[in-house]
């Protein structure tokens, strides 16, 4: 507030007179660690990373929801120490022998510490035993290829055989084009497994997070008995740019956001991230 009101004067310390001891200490003071501050893409403010983490990875200034990693999501939702991971170590057969694909995967595995775009397993929420699958955009934009489809299908089938509900946190740019038609088949494969789960009288809750698009929207994401969504999440089948190009006009405000889907009858409820665990616990309690 008083910035610029007072003229500042600077006194530079006389280097020759500074004792050696002090100099050593000055050299040892560490740099500000990377990641201590983060910039919010929505409002442009620089925020202390710890504040973001404490606020459920939502910008404290503008309430913008940051995308979170699968393991972070799992730690937010499941009871502490209840998570047991399933089906690690799966690798794609690279059906198209797509140029540089395997190299890209290897690089991403190193950089993101993820094997693929989804983590599956079991755990509990408020004591209720559930199967869970969480997708994340860090790995190839969360695109669904052979491994993602296989992990999700196995998780569903296992949930069916254990007679427990399954929760899938959807987050994806769509089907993985590097795997061609094999990726398309994952849509049918996951949907078929969900049908069986449904026929067994079991619960499937899908939680749509930003972004949920393409082949994922047109398969398991929209098949939940109950479909929840995070506020303002982008959820749609065709990408917004493709639609704009097709129809030749600008899209209406709020198009393909969670609120839009709620209005048009395609989701059950929009749940704020801080209420998600509680909401899921309540729903599970009502179904088991």
């Amino acid at each position: 507030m008083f910035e610029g009101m007072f003229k500042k004067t600077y006194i530079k310390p006389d280097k020759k007179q500074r004792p050696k001891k002090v100099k050593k200490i000055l050299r040892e003071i560490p740099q500000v660690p990377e990641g201590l501050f983060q910039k919010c893409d929505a409002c442009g403010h620089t925020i202390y990373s710890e504040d973001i983490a404490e606020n459920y990875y939502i910008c404290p200034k503008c309430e913008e929801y940051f995308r979170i990693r699968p393991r972070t999501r799992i730690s937010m939702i499941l009871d502490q120490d209840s998570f047991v991971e399933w089906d690690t170590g799966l690798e794609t057969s690279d059906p198209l022998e797509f140029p540089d694909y395997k190299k890209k995967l290897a690089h991403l595995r190193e950089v993101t510490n993820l094997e693929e775009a989804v983590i599956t397993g079991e755990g509990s929420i408020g004591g209720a035993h559930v199967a869970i699958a969480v997708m994340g955009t860090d790995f190839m934009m969360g695109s669904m290829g052979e491994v993602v489809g296989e992990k999700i299908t196995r998780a569903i089938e296992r949930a069916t055989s254990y007679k427990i509900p399954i929760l899938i946190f959807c987050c994806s740019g769509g089907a993985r084009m590097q795997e061609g038609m094999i990726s398309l088949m994952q849509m049918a494969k996951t949907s078929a497994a969900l049908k069986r789960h449904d026929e067994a009288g079991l619960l499937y809750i899908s939680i749509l997070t930003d972004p949920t698009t393409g082949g994922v929207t047109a398969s398991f994401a929209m098949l939940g008995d109950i479909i929840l969504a995070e506020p303002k999440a982008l959820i749609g089948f065709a990408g917004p740019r493709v639609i704009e190009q097709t129809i030749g006009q600008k899209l209406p405000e709020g198009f393909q956001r969670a609120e839009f889907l709620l209005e048009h009858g395609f989701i059950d409820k929009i749940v704020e991230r801080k209420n998600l665990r509680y909401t899921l616990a309540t729903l599970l309690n009502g179904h088991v």
Partner: protein
Amino acid sequence: MGIKYIHRAYYVLCPAGEETTSLFHKVYAREVNVLRKEDVMEEKDFEIKVETSQLTAWDRVQIARNADRPTALDYISVLFSRFMELHGDRLEGDDPAVVGGLARIFDMNVTVIGQQKGRSTKENIKRNFGMPSPSGYRKALRLMRQAEKFNRPIICFVDTPGAFCGIEAEEKGEGEAIARNLFEMSSLKVPILSIVIGEGGSGGALALAVGNEVWMLENSMYSILSPEGFSSILWKDKKRAAEAASIMKCTAADLKELGIIERVIREREPVKTEDMSEVAEQMKEGIFEFLEKYKEMQGEQIAQERYERFRKF
């Protein structure tokens, strides 16, 4: 009798002395760079007849999209008798991009469904270029459920550039409509046969292609996205679509090799509405075999087989 190493050729294994188009689907058909000895099923009593094809993947995509390629209604009128088109999704409308109804073949009642393109620009506008809206998928699902109720096999003709992507389509839940079809089709207790006759545009096509068997015409294409889309995402250049088409493996031969489809319907020359006989004959024979195969099977078993078919990918 011997094995030739051929560059860019189709090869057909036929019993010695015999050669018919209907055998084509029984053997391994592919476009190869080098024909390996391991690819031959049985050398004894077989003679290798080589037919070369100069068509590239991109050529086949062009043929698949060609304006004078026969449409679903053309096949329905040639293959079946007593076709009665049924309309409506029972909710809000009747999508002209999807046709369906009752028909008869080999003394059996069947339900036939297809994505329908137009023959002229005017008709294409009416049919929305064969791009279904949610209403079309819901109509298809209604007809398929009805087929299950009355124990009728279902035959689908797939020919679409993709599901329609417009504001209204999103408002009415295009994603949900496709998902719902995949969900329900997967466990129907009647046999489902899907034939890609032209373009198989991604999820919009898959919503009619969760079949016990999926076939493709030799010059059709079935892909996760268009070669143009592929090339613009991959190389930021729409003009390399021809290259993309080869890499993507979207032709009948590619997909037969990948195990995505069971059968390729031969087209010595690209099929035209004026002369569909070569293709129709193969289809009729194939449909007969298909119906015979599932005649004695229980509904549960039919659904189980379909589940496993998709589970293996």
